[in-house]
């Protein structure tokens, strides 16, 4: 190709005085997930910004309306694909709230344990990716190695590393393996060791700190107004955690602290997540100690839970039960419910509407990321281009969740 300005003398060139528009994304190395940020720049300062999402919209809410209740699990799995177990648990709890059933105690502990493992994965990924985008590649690899240890547990338990589809209405797909407790007890100290080691690399690093501290500040009032929840809200100093404010499962039996930040900048969000990993480890420890070793996993209700396979093949009742649940789905009473749990990024809500048939009428997912990402626009206006990267990273926008 010909050079563009071949015919221009250098003296004729002028610096453009117009503000410049720049397109970041949708596919950009520093934008994990696909999001497009259109910014108007004056020099290197952002004067206007428009955040555009939707590049990962897969129509989960529509898909959920087409199958039966248990067929929603693969969809909710893929919402926050870094911590799918939390979504599974959240959806199970929502449907069980409508059915008016409570799962056995052993399952409650099992759900807490798997959920906290998933939360550790989520925070490790966020903090690791954030460090990587700022140029610190080593911590990222360490974090991912720690995450891999947890995914190994998930693989043993569920058969899949990432998208488990392991929850079921009224229980879980399978009981915990015999060595579940031992594996978790052995793994958690290794994960925490990696965490401490990586902190040593990052928290004394001047470049890392300079790009996080006092960048992307959000006040408490603004965060509440925007519907922030989870670690991002706590970083502004609001100690709101669904696990503490509205305890579900058996969270009221554990001792844990809620880390809060003071200024609500990127550094606070980073540190909140770091500390939450430690608190999750604390919960896991207590959870494993209290979790019963035997006992049923599923509720004893043939209208909700699939019968054991041997009964399906040997008894007529089992066959009919199995047929009715698979072909017609679980009959959830007509009505509407909003159930909320603490997901990786904050309050993960499910607003379900049932018309009494085996198929959901409406599955509304309240993704925590969605509310958090909409703040990005006002966080980056007035900042500079390099500030977008840590700010965006600290919000932990998960494309699958944000775009449904």
């Amino acid at each position: 190709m010909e050079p563009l300005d071949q015919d221009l003398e250098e003296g004729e060139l002028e610096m453009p005085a117009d503000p410049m528009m720049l397109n970041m994304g949708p596919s950009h190395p520093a934008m994990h997930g696909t999001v497009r940020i259109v910014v108007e720049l004056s020099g290197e300062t952002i004067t206007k910004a428009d955040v555009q999402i939707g590049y990962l919209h897969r129509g989960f809410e529509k898909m959920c309306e087409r199958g039966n209740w248990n067929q929603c699990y693969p969809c909710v799995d893929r919402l926050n694909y870094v911590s799918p177990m939390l979504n599974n648990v959240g959806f199970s709890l929502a449907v069980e709230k409508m059915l008016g059933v409570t799962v056995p105690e052993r399952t409650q502990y099992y759900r807490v344990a798997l959920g906290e493992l998933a939360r550790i994965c989520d925070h490790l990924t966020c903090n690791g990716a954030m460090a990587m985008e700022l140029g610190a590649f080593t911590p990222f690899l360490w974090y991912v190695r720690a995450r891999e240890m947890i995914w190994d547990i998930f693989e043993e338990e569920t058969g899949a590393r990432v998208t488990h589809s392991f929850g079921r209405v009224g229980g879980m797909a399978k009981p915990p393996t015999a060595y579940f407790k031992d594996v978790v007890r052995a793994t958690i100290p290794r994960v925490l060791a990696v965490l401490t080691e990586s902190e040593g690399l990052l928290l004394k690093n001047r470049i890392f700190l300079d790009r996080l501290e006092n960048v992307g500040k959000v006040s408490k009032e603004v965060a509440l107004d925007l519907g922030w929840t989870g670690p991002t809200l706590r970083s502004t100093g609001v100690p709101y955690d669904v696990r503490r404010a509205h305890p579900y499962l058996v969270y009221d039996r554990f001792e844990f602290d809620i880390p809060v930040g003071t200024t609500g900048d990127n550094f606070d969000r980073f540190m909140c997540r770091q500390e939450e990993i430690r608190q999750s480890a604390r919960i896991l420890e207590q959870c494993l100690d209290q979790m019963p070793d035997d006992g049923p996993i599923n509720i004893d209700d043939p209208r909700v839970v699939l019968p054991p396979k041997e009964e399906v093949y040997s008894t007529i009742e089992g066959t009919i039960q199995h047929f009715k649940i698979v072909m017609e789905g679980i009959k959830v009473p007509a009505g509407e419910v909003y159930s909320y749990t603490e997901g990786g990024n904050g309050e993960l809500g499910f607003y379900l509407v049932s018309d009494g048939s085996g198929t959901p009428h409406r599955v509304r997912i309240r993704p925590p990321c969605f509310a958090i990402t909409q703040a990005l626009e006002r966080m980056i206006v007035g900042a500079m281009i390099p500030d977008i990267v840590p700010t965006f990273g600290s919000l932990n926008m998960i494309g699958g969740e944000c775009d449904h």
Partner: protein
Amino acid sequence: MSKAVIEALKSRFGEAIWDVHAQFGDDTAVVDPDKWFEIARFLKTDPRCAMNMFVDLCGVDYPDRDPRFEVVLHLRSLEKGHRIRLKARIGDADTELPEIDSVTPIWGGANWFERETYDLMGIVFRGHPDLRRILTYPEFKGHPLRKDYPANLTQPLIKFRDVPEKFAPFGPDEGMSFGRQTHEFHRDDPQMIESRKKGLRDPRDPQAKPLPPKES
């Protein structure tokens, strides 16, 4: 727990509260859609309610009912810890896009949630600062979460956007355009090849200088 909120709403608005229930423990008020904004502002400002946390806003389609759509708003109070669900029924057989007041001026967080509801459910929010599609693209036909939208419908192909795009926060004459660069990316474009033969730099810009002659 949020019975007090329901009572406060009833005493303040009376007739405008059409129905209240607490199915599965979630306190719900079905309200007059014309008073939607007023009731929402009351919930935020009244000290008995103090609903300062915006939680969720969505739409539900009931094709068999007469006001066909329901707009559902979930709120929480940080100080008091109570929650409430507010619903309004809107839309009839004649209106394609039912309308309701926007609550974005009250809770800034409603902005994207209302855009999403508009995009997927086709509910127009009056007074919304920037109501455009968010999860689908501007040329998308229909509103996919409506029950009469077939799940397997294929959308028509759209033309490559030829004009430089401008988005809502940017006025039409603001900033530099960042449309396609006309030089390199159009090597195979017949119009471009034609104009190159004529020695023009950009076929769409008559003021552009001709290309310099090639050195032999």
